[in-house]
C-alpha cells in the first residue's frame, strides 16, 4: 500500500467507532423512534404522511438488508429485489388462496424465502464480484419472467388482483389504515434492530473480514462460502419482509415488485445514503422517496433528475450522505486533518 492510500484510509472515519455501545442503547433508540412514529397519527390527520412512512418501512428494510450484503460483506447483489417481490407475491398468494391468519402467512412466506434464497445463494456466493452481480441479476429476471408467464398462479402482468384479505388477529386489523401503519413501523423497527444486532455480532465482524480480505479470512479458519451464504439468506428474509409490507400496503402484488429496477433502486438508495453507517440506507430511502414524490409531481423526466442527483453523490461527494456527515463530524471533533 502506498503512503497516499494509507492517508486516504486514515481520512475515512471508523464506521465501527461506536462498537462498544451496548445493545440496550440500540433498543432504547429503537423504542424512542417507535414512540415518535406511533404518536404521529394522533398529531396529524395526513393520510399521505402515514402512507409515506409505510413505504419507507418497506423500502428501508429492503435497502438496509441490501447493505448487509454490499457494505458489510462486499457482495454487490444486483438481484436483491427478487426477494422483495418474492415476499410480496408469497404473502399475497398465501392469504388469497389459503385464508390462514396473517402471522401464519408471514412466517410461511419467510420459510419459502429461506428455501429459495438458500438455493440461489448456494449457486451465487461462490462467484467473484462481477459474476456474482450478474448471476444474481439473472435469477431476478428468471423470477420476474416466471411471475409474468405463470398467469394462472400470479395473474401475469396484471399482478395479484382482487385485494389481499387481511383478517384481524390479536385485535390488529390491517385493513385499518392506522393499524397497518403501526404494524409497518413495528416491523421496520424490529427489523432494523435485528439487522443492527447481526452487524455488531461476532458474525458481523466475520463479514467485515470477508469484505476486506476473503482469502486471509479463510486462513484464519473461516468458512467463507458458508458465511456468505448465511448472510445472503438472512438479508433475503428482511427484503422479503419489506415486500410483505408493500403487499399489505397496496393490497396486491405486481410484477414491478420483482423487476430488476427494484434492485437498482436498492443500490441507488445505498449510494444516496451511504454504506459505511448502519442507518445510511434508511436515510437514503427517505431521500429517494421524497425525491420520487416531489419530482414526479413537477416533471415527467423523473429519471433524468434522479440520475443527476445520483451523479452528484457519486462524483461530487464521492460517498453517500451519511458517510459524508459522519466524516465531517469526525473531522470536526478531532480537529482538522493535517
Amino acid at each position, binding site marked *: 500500500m502506498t503512503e497516499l492510500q494509507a492517508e486516504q484510509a486514515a481520512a475515512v472515519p471508523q464506521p465501527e467507532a461506536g462498537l462498544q455501545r451496548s445493545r440496550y442503547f440500540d433498543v432504547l433508540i429503537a423504542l424512542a423512534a417507535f414512540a415518535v412514529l406511533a404518536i404521529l397519527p394522533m398529531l396529524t390527520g395526513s393520510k399521505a404522511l402515514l402512507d409515506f412512512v409505510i413505504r419507507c418501512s418497506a423500502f428501508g428494510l429492503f435497502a438496509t438488508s441490501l447493505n448487509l450484503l454490499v457494505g458489510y460483506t462486499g457482495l454487490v447483489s444486483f438481484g436483491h429485489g427478487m426477494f422483495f417481490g418474492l415476499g410480496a407475491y408469497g404473502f399475497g398468494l398465501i392469504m388469497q388462496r389459503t385464508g390462514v391468519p396473517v402471522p401464519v402467512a408471514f412466517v410461511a412466506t419467510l420459510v419459502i424465502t429461506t428455501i429459495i434464497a438458500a438455493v440461489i445463494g448456494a449457486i451465487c456466493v461462490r462467484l467473484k464480484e462481477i459474476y456474482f452481480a450478474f448471476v444474481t441479476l439473472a435469477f431476478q429476471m428468471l423470477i420476474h419472467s416466471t411471475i409474468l408467464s405463470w398467469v394462472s398462479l400470479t395473474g401475469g402482468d396484471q399482478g395479484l388482483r382482487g385485494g389481499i384479505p387481511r383478517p384481524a388477529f390479536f385485535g390488529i386489523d390491517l385493513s385499518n389504515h392506522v393499524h397497518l401503519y403501526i404494524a409497518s413501523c413495528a416491523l421496520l423497527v424490529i427489523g432494523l434492530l435485528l439487522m443492527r444486532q447481526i452487524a455488531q455480532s461476532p458474525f458481523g465482524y466475520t463479514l467485515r473480514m470477508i469484505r476486506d480480505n476473503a482469502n486471509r479470512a479463510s*486462513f484464519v*479458519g473461516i468458512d467463507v462460502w458458508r458465511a456468505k451464504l448465511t448472510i445472503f439468506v438472512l438479508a433475503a428474509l428482511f427484503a422479503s419482509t419489506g415486500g410483505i409490507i408493500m403487499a399489505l400496503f397496496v393490497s396486491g402484488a405486481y410484477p414491478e415488485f420483482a423487476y430488476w429496477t427494484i434492485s437498482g433502486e436498492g443500490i441507488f438508495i445505498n449510494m444516496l445514503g451511504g454504506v459505511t453507517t448502519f442507518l445510511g440506507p434508511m436515510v437514503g430511502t427517505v431521500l429517494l422517496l421524497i425525491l420520487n414524490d416531489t419530482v414526479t409531481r413537477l416533471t415527467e423526466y423523473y429519471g433524468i433528475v434522479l440520475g443527476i442527483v445520483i451523479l452528484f453523490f457519486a462524483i461530487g461527494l464521492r460517498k453517500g450522505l451519511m458517510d459524508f456527515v459522519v466524516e465531517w463530524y469526525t473531522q470536526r471533533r478531532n480537529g482538522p486533518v493535517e
Partner: protein
Amino acid sequence: MLEIRSLSKSFGGVKATDNVTLDFADGSLTAVIGPNGAGKSTFFNLITGALKPDSGQILLNGVDLAGRTPPEIVRYGIGRAFQVASIFPSLTVHETMLAAVCADQRRASVLHRRFPLAETRDRAEHAMELLGLVSKRNRVAATLSHGDQKLLDIALALVLDPKVLLLDEPTAGMGTEERWRMIDKVRELWEKQKITVVFIEHDMDIVFKIAPEIVVLCYGRILATGTPEAIRRNEAVIEAYLGSEHHAGAAI
C-alpha cells in the same frame, strides 16, 4: 512433527514442487532458501491448502492434511503469514485480533451476542504484546506502516495458537535495520512460543546467522538440507546458488 512425503505439484509442464520429502521437528526453526522461482512460495501454498498437491502427503502429528481446505488446515494448527502483508485494512489492530480469536474459538457465526466477546480478550491482548502492537491497538490496519502491517500479519497467524508457523519472507520490502529488528522478533517468538517456525528468506546473512536448520530449494527440488555450516560447504549449493563469494566468506 510436520512430515512432508513426496509432495509434488505441476503447473502445465513445470514442476513447481518435485517429489519433496522433508521433516520439521517440533520446536525447530528452519529457513527455506532458493533462487527466484525455486518453488518456495508454492511449497508454502501446498502445506497451507492454498494449492492442492498433485500427489504426496503432508502429515502433521500423523494426520494427512494434503488436499484439505485452508480453514481446515488452520484448525489443525498450521498458521501462515504472507509475503505481502495480508490484513483486514478497515479493522483496527485490536478488532483484527479479537475477530481472529473468535474464529479460532468457532464463534465466527455467533449472532446473538455483541462483538467483542469477553472470552477473546486475553488471547488478543497476549498476541498484541508478543508482536509489540499494543500501543497501536486502535489504529486502523490500513494506516499502519509497512513494518507494522507485516507484524500484524504475523500476529494474525500467531493469535490462533498454531503448532507450526509458516512465514513467507517476513522481511520482504524492509530496509536493512528494519530487517534485523523483524528477524530478531521472529527468533524471539520462536523461543518464547516453542512452536515450529519455517520461514522463507532471501538475505543470506540473516539466514546463516539465525536459522539452525536450512532447506535449499531449486527448481522445485530439495538441493540440500542441514545446518548453516553444512550448507555453506555444500558443493551443489555453492554452484547453484551461493556463488564463490559466500564460499570465500565461509572459508575465512
